[in-house]
């Protein structure tokens, strides 16, 4: 074990790591990375921010292991539990967008005319039309489960038939959905940035239940002594400042704004 540690240290020393001091690690949801948000805002921040984009469920687990300094995800209840259990300093609203239901243009379940998301999901279940679920405990997956519950449907009974759990990230799930002509729930930012849409399009949107709030939490040094406290505080502070909020608002793709800042001013 000691020999392995020594070898790893040597290897670490031998490798050039850029600006190894002063960086922080952000455990993040994938939609922010896939839609290019970090590429757009981090140069305006200036400090070195290393983003590990893995999906909300895994990001929270990694942060619980103290493997990050800041958590940026979209599952409010899980974020509040993270803080309540002592892993996070405080949770802040950062920005929002919304979820959309996408599906094949020929819309076999006829969800396009549905009055709300409940009716749309009920139509899919009634038609037993294929639906690709993340199935990975991500923020989007948690939202999707809540929406099914809200519509009074338990899709688990049909898992493996029309309800298909991919156990994969948002992009991989969209690849599967477009490949098999399935419906899927996705955040709007990932969908706008996604380049393999095929003949899939947004079929249901705009329901208040589809609101998608992103939050940011600095990891608690009392629980994780190795956390880079100053760097984490500086980055969270910047994100919530008018400057950071403006950077988020300015990120556009194909002429559309992807995230809408809503931090509770200073």
């Amino acid at each position: 074990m000691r020999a392995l540690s020594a070898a790893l240290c040597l290897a670490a020393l031998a490798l050039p790591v850029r600006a190894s001091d002063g960086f922080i690690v952000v455990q993040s949801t994938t939609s922010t990375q896939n839609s290019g948000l970090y590429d757009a805002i981090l140069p305006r921040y200036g400090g070195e921010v290393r983003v590990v984009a893995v999906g909300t469920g895994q990001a929270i687990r990694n942060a619980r292991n103290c493997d990050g300094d800041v958590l940026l995800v979209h599952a409010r209840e899980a974020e509040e539990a993270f803080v309540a259990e002592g892993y996070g300093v405080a949770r802040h609203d950062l920005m929002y967008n919304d979820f959309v239901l996408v599906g094949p243009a020929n819309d076999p379940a006829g969800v396009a005319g549905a009055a709300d998301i409940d009716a749309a999901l009920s139509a899919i279940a009634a038609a037993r039309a294929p639906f690709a679920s993340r199935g990975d405990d991500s923020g989007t997956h948690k939202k999707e489960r809540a929406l099914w519950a809200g519509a009074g449907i338990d899709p688990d009974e049909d898992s493996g038939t029309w309800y298909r759990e991919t156990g994969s990230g948002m992009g991989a799930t969209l690849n599967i959905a477009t490949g098999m002509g399935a419906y899927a729930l996705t955040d709007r930012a990932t969908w706008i940035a996604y380049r393999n849409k095929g003949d899939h399009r947004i079929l249901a949107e705009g329901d208040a239940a589809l609101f998608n709030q992103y939050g940011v939490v600095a990891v608690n040094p009392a629980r994780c002594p190795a956390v880079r406290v100053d760097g984490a505080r500086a980055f969270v502070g910047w994100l919530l400042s008018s400057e950071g909020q403006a950077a988020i608002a300015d990120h556009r793709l194909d002429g559309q704004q992807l995230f809408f800042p809503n931090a509770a001013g200073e």
Partner: protein
Amino acid sequence: MQGFGDAFAAAFGLIARLDADLVEIVGLSLQVSLTATLLACAIGFPLGAVLAVGRFPGRGALTVLVNALMGLPPVVVGLVVYLMLSRAGPLGALGLLYTPAAMIAAQTLLVVPIVAALTRQIVADLDAEYHETLRSMGAGAGARMRTLLWDGRLALTTAGLAGMGRALAEVGAVMIVGGNIDHVTRVMTTAIALETSRGELALALGLGMVLMVLSLALNALAMGARMGAARMAHA
């Protein structure tokens, strides 16, 4: 639908303008996978020779284990290394998670069984051939291993290349312990996975083609070196 034509165009475009990000990613891929392969050879060659020549209890079981570990899923290796290097793990204080060193450690673990198992077979075959000669010379086990490893050096390059192929191609382990961090731990395979998840299939496939070209070049180099060495040996 994005087709192979788009992929070829993407690959050609990336190479033709020597895209700075691509150069960085290719450089890190080579750095990580070549280092891991060299470390794995440093461990795997002697380990394979010991398994081939040594006589000790449990040798058969160990051989079966090493052979079985060739099928180790990269994701499992990634998880094991993650649990070791996580701040919450036994080696967390080193702060190596999400660094190239962590990726090298994971790939070394992946490649050692391949190199060791192939080395064992090569050395065992040579040993069967030269056993009497070496014994008549009164060579001890250590000297026999050294002699046989040296004698089998041409075949052993294939073992090393097989290991390097595994290291360059795997994505599961480096994704978990490296984190696919832009400019820090992003390598060819994790970049391909990211572009696939963005639906940029042509770009992902283009990166895959660059990886194949790289692999071809490395194998051609090794083949050239082997042929040169063989010619020298017969001259």
